[in-house]
């Protein structure tokens, strides 16, 4: 963990009048920085958001996905499907503030079921240009043996202050396989709360990749439960902050049975006076013998005003397990920079090449549909 220059101004404290409407919607006060999970996360950018729920997310009467055509193997579930809410319950986060806020905002709901090979799908998340709060809620059920490649690309329609709230629930049946990509490219004053909860049955495989950049405030909370163990979870994260942006990833993976596997790499690039937070929770209770978990946090600190907080949080009770974790924070390597410069490549271009290489490792794990969004240009500016 790194010490950072002090003195960043705080525009509004949680509980101030500008935030009261968000507390009211959620039915609970905003998290305070005295809470461990929110210690490094300054919510003051939310104060700029005009009160009100933007059109496009106000319930079944305005279904934003009415025109959505689904690939073979993917069908809609009824809104009353009993699995709705089950992953939230399994991961103990029904009372988390982003979850309560999403519920209070009466999100547009899309519930999908996948049987057999669902192919690949990009789900549009239409935002309103006017600002305010936009909320979506997804339920995705992969029946045993089903497969799907899914891209979510939450993006603001403008640079106006707005809050996008995305709650995705995933239920993976036995031997199901989901490649899930979340490409979250923000701009201006837009903020994002992205909450993902996944129940994995034995033999299932989850590859979840989240790339986030450009938000005044972005909070990603992937929470995975391997309910019988014996499943595979591969998490990849990349967050880039610049200016006064803040990106925060709080991941949590729990093994409720033996022989589970986790392979997690989280990367961050912090420039300007940006702040990056990563907290990687892994729970290996007694029942989770022979768990094989590896977590790596790699961080690139490009400015002396930027700040990176990274923390593995492993709770291991089982005694026959392999759990590795590590974190690195570095600047661009001077020998790499010099090598590039000694070949006529100016230092700005060289720095961009090295940053791109750093990011590419995660970007290449996004579903192929992400290429259309040209994520590398969005992250680093055009080269």
């Amino acid at each position, binding site marked *: 963990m790194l010490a950072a220059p002090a003195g960043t101004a705080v525009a509004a404290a949680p509980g101030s009048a500008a935030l009261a409407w968000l507390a009211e919607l959620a039915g609970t006060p905003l998290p305070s920085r005295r809470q461990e999970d929110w210690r490094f996360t300054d919510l003051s950018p939310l104060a700029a958001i005009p009160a009100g729920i933007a059109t496009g997310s106000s319930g079944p009467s305005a279904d934003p996905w009415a025109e959505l055509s689904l690939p073979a193997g993917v069908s809609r579930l009824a809104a009353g499907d009993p699995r709705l809410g089950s992953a939230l319950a399994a991961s103990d986060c029904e009372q988390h503030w982003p979850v309560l806020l999403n519920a209070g905002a009466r999100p547009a709901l899309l519930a999908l079921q996948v049987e057999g090979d669902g192919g690949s799908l990009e789900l549009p998340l239409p935002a309103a240009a006017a600002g305010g709060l936009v909320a979506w809620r997804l339920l995705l059920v992969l029946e045993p043996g089903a497969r799907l490649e899914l891209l979510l690309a939450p993006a603001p329609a403008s640079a106006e202050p707005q809050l996008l709230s995305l709650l995705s629930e995933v239920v993976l049946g036995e031997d199901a396989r989901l490649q899930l990509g979340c490409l979250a490219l923000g701009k201006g004053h837009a903020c994002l709360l992205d909450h993902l909860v996944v129940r994995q049955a034995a033999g299932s495989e989850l590859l979840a990749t989240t790339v986030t950049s450009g938000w005044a405030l972005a909070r990603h909370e992937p929470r995975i439960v391997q309910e019988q163990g014996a499943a595979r979870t591969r998490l990849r994260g990349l967050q880039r902050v610049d200016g006064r942006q803040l990106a925060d990833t709080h991941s949590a993976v729990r093994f409720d049975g033996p022989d589970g596997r986790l392979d997690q790499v989280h990367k961050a690039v912090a420039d300007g006076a940006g702040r990056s937070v990563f907290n990687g929770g892994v729970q290996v209770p007694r029942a989770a013998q022979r768990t094989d978990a590896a977590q790596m946090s790699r961080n690139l600190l490009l400015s002396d005003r930027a700040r990176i907080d990274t923390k593995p949080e492993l709770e291991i009770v089982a005694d026959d397990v392999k759990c590795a974790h590590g974190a690195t924070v570095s600047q661009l390597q001077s020998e*790499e920079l*010099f*090598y590039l410069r000694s070949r006529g490549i100016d230092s700005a271009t060289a720095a961009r*090449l090295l940053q791109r290489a750093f990011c590419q*490792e995660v970007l290449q794990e996004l579903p192929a549909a992400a290429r259309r969004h040209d994520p590398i240009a969005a992250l680093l500016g055009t080269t």
Partner: protein
Amino acid sequence: MIRPDAPVLLEIRDLHACVEDQPILKGVNLTIRAGEIHAVMGRNGSGKSTLSKVLAGHPAYTVTGGSVLYNGGNLLELEPEQRSRTGLFLGFQYPVEIPGVSNLEFLRVATNARRGQRGDEELDTFAFEDLVRERLALVQMDPAFLERSVNEGFSGGEKKRNEILQMALLEPLVAILDETDSGLDIDALRVVAAGVNQLSDPDNATLLITHYQRLLDLITPDHVHVMAAGRILRSGGKELALELERSGYDWVDEQLAAPQGQQGRQPLEVG
């Protein structure tokens, strides 16, 4: 090829440099003319590699005295990238691995930086592929290495071939090859030496930094210099390298131990 009337490409005068306040170069003098191949030899720690890094502009080294004229201009005021674009090339002793940066793209960006400086048009991906495949033949390198990350997972020999490939693409005016022979088996050494020989012409110059005669069996130097304690202690023709091979460097210690007056003498000609 020695031509007394050939233009001077590099003129190093009384060069002093240090790293982290530790003086390494203590008055290097060396003049290199077009068409010449020079070899700088010497033990580890004599300052050979420092000389190459200082000439390429490595930011860890600070020049504390002296001057370097390069092709008529002041080399020391140029950024490393400007030195490269104007034709100074350093072949690294330990080429750097850059995971995630494609070798092909790296070579193209570097080549275009040099071409831009010379007023040549930039090569697009297709035109560059043609050029790079032609130059690959010179170093007998497998095209598969173009698709990989820069030097990542390359063997020692592959890294050095990649260096010579870069030299072939950048067409330098002055090439400094820092222990290009280290870590090479005899076949790779032959390939690398043949590449360097083919790239030498009457308008450019090469400075080889090496420990061993075996490179000089394949690339015949016009001048050989012996470095010790941050200076060039002795200069001669190719015979000097052969003599070093026979008699080693013990005489260096004797000369360094000799009274101050003798150290300042003109370098001895041998043979």
